[in-house]
């Protein structure tokens, strides 16, 4: 008789600051089993995976990397909400041994959340090369939780970490985390406040530790303040908090968030560091990382290097992508499609079979042949840039320029990528921290003429009006983007956040980690975007097959002919250009019945049409990427606004050309 062993399930979460090697540990733990998606209802990446170890099935969730657990960014809120949900049996706090002081700042906050913490002390090799020795046992004794020294890139310590997790879950190792004490005045306020919270807000205490609530209230955490305000008797607490904050600010002469942070750093500097961290010798002062840092940030060298790197990326993504696209389209369009359509047209009536073949399968194949070739190299390069630490350097160099449009240096990469393809550009908007900036950036990114729109611009204006006019359109586009960025920055609520960014050391990327990350991100994109692309393609094909195009042209003609001065039939290429932008050119020639546009359109009409296409609603794949990053509401808002902008731009062009130039 065979016994079915039921594996014991353990849930763990990885928490840590950015650039501490958290994702390397994650990859080491779960390998290929990971799923990358978004946190429900959020635009922050969520990675989870599974590890089978003996009789245990360990589920690992990689929380977003955060410096703190306040409510500064969406990432911080997600991380702390997850920890508060108590879904994880263990929270593994990944700590950079070479920057122990700042990393323990997060550890203290994890302790305040009363999370079951184990410390993974990573990058021990880097600490050593900086001449830092850490007394691991003493650190573990002070904190009251296990501390596992690790060098995740070589796999050192992974096994011990897993064993420790199991020991803790099985109760063989007890966690007795120390309760950190703040300075006298602050500590007094915290304990009084938590007593009051226990008395007046018992309903909140079942979900949140009262001491944590007290600390967060004193810190002025907006989310917690809102929760308390909306509770019965919450007003007593908020008034009390106000009084305490005033008093503390009076005593310390500083603002409250500085007071609390100073106290935390004080605890670390006074009670922990002197006993565990020893500087053995001077650090090697001019390491390779330092040299790279100098070359890539010194203006005279930095800008040429930046341009070189981005040109290479551009070239790699778009020539590599095109090659890849050709291979895929040979496989799918030329071999698979005829075979599929042969089968389907045999069973279904003509109209329906066209919808299924062109709409459904066409959409599916378009996802693979159009998006995949550009997204795969994009994610690969993005992962390398992230893992090496070049991104902060590029942001540093470009910050001054990006400020003109209300963004900061990190926005540079997505904007650049937009000229190749809007899809990866949209996906790249996640590098921005705040909601506001992500939204602003995605808005600008979809206005950038991608390579497909370049085909239209060159194919119409470049060929029939003149190359110089095509260049002028690009210039107009840049001006519109700058103006629009400026206006949006004024209109959107909230303040533009200035650049406050860590400049981490350069690290050698691990190929395996990069490849895994790339693969799982691409998989995630295809799962999420393909249904949308297929649905859009089916709808458009249905419109076409049911012969609704003349009807639509009829209703849009006041707009198209009236405002824009174009033939009414051009509504068709405009609408179907949503599938893929170069279709706008192909279909224009088709509906006008000539590939020599000079015969059917005048110069003014060509310019107006091209300008409309340049700003018009992004292609379906871009909308899908936008939905993935921004959510439905904002994606629809952005798409509709681009329609408005394009018509407005076309209208203005029409008027200017008619009245000023008499065309």
């Amino acid at each position, binding site marked *: 008789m065979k016994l079915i062993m039921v594996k014991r399930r353990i849930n763990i979460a990885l928490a840590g600051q950015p650039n501490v090697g958290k994702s390397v540990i994650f990859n080491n733990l779960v390998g290929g089993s990971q799923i990358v998606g978004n946190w429900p209802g959020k635009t922050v990446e969520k990675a989870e995976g599974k590890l089978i170890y003996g009789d245990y099935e360990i589920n690992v969730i990689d929380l977003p990397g955060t*410096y703190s657990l306040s409510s500064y960014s969406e990432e911080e809120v997600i991380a702390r909400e997850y920890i508060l949900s108590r879904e994880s049996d263990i929270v593994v706090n990944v700590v950079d041994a070479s920057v122990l002081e700042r990393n323990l*700042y997060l550890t203290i906050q994890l302790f305040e959340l009363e999370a079951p913490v184990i410390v993974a002390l990573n990058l021990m090799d880097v600490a050593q090369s900086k001449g830092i020795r850490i007394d691991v046992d003493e650190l573990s004794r002070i904190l009251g939780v296990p501390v596992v020294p690790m060098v995740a890139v070589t796999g050192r310590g992974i096994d011990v970490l897993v064993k420790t997790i199991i020991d803790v879950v099985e109760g063989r190792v007890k966690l007795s985390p120390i309760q950190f004490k703040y300075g006298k005045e602050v500590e007094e306020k915290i304990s009084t406040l938590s007593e009051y919270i226990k008395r007046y807000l018992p309903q909140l205490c079942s979900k949140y530790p009262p001491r944590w609530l007290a600390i967060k209230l004193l810190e002025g955490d907006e989310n917690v303040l809102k929760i308390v305000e909306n509770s019965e008797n919450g007003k*007593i607490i908020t008034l009390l908090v106000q009084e305490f904050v005033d008093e503390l600010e009076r005593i310390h002469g500083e603002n409250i968030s*500085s007071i609390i942070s100073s106290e935390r750093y004080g605890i670390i500097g006074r009670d922990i560091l002197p006993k565990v961290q020893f500087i053995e010798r001077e650090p090697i002062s001019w390491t390779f990382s330092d040299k790279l840092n100098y070359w890539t940030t010194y*203006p005279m060298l930095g800008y040429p290097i930046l341009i070189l790197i981005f040109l290479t990326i551009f070239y790699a993504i778009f020539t590599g992508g095109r090659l890849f696209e050709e291979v895929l389209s040979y496989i799918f369009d030329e071999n698979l499609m005829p075979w599929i359509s042969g089968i389907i047209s045999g069973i279904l009536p003509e109209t329906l079979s066209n919808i299924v073949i062109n709409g459904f399968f066409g959409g599916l194949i378009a996802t693979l042949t159009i998006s995949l070739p550009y997204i795969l190299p994009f994610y690969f390069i993005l992962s390398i840039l992230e893992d090496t630490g070049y991104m902060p350097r590029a942001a540093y*160099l470009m910050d001054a*320029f990006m*400020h003109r449009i209300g963004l900061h*240096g990190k926005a540079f990469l997505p904007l650049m990528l937009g000229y190749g393809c809007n899809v990866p550009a949209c996906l790249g908007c996640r590098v921005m921290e705040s909601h506001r900036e992500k939204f602003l950036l995605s808005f600008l990114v979809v206005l950038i003429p991608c390579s497909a729109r370049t085909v239209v611009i060159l194919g119409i204006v470049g060929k029939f009006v003149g190359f110089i006019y095509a260049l002028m359109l690009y210039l107009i586009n840049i001006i519109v983007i700058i103006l629009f960025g400026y206006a949006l920055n004024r209109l959107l609520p909230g303040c533009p956040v200035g650049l406050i960014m860590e400049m981490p050391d350069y690290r050698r990327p691990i190929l395996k980690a990069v490849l895994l990350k790339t693969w799982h991100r691409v998989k995630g994109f295809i799962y999420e975007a393909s249904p949308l692309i297929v649905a859009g393609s089916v709808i458009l094909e249905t419109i076409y097959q049911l012969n609704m195009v003349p009807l639509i042209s009829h209703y849009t003609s006041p707009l198209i002919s009236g405002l824009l001065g174009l033939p009414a039939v051009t509504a068709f290429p405009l609408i179907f250009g949503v599938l893929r932008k170069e279709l706008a050119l192909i279909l224009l020639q088709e509906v006008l019945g000539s590939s020599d546009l000079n015969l059917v359109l005048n110069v003014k009409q060509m310019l107006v049409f091209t300008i409309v296409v340049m700003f018009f609603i992004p292609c379906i794949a871009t909308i899908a990427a936008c939905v993935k990053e921004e959510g439905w509401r904002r994606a629809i808002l952005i798409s509709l606004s681009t329609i408005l902008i394009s018509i407005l731009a076309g209208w203005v062009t029409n008027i200017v050309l008619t009245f000023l130039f008499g065309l």
Partner: protein
Amino acid sequence: MLMPKILETIYSISISGGMVTLDEVSKRLGVPTSFLEDVLKLAREKGLVSSDSLNLTDSGREFILRYRQAFIHDKLIHGRHGVSSLYSDSMSEHLKYDHNLSDEDLKSLRSFLSKFDGNIDEAEPLTNLRRGERGIFIYAVGGHGMLRRLSDLGLTPGIELEVVSIASLGGPIVVKVRGYEIALGRGVASRIYVKRLR
């Protein structure tokens, strides 16, 4: 606890000619009457509120006036909020309603304090420092999010920092603090005040 706040409310109701009742105070502060009664008991013991009615005694009124002076003094002149906080809506509201300051008062206070902006404690903006120079971080002026982020990254008052590099064309400034480097946009850096070390 909350005594000044509650006395303050009683005082503002009475000088505006309203009837001071427990319900009215409770409504204005959003605090249950049971809680108010506990505090009032304490206030009566200290002789700040008369024993038979809800009116402030002479020493109660004096207490409030001292409290207001202390508030303005601490918050605006010795505090690290900087004059710019006077322009924030929440602070203006606070001064106007909780301390009965008129618009005129606010205006003159602003113009008086503006003379000191940037000169408190010989602090100067971080943007004044050149590459390689060191300074002590004194305070920063800015929104809650920015202050939070700065202190989370270890820029807390009293910490020493060194300017590692300055980008051209009005770009960011990189400072070394607690052994690691942070890039600060020029706008952020201009709102960080430091004491230069020579």
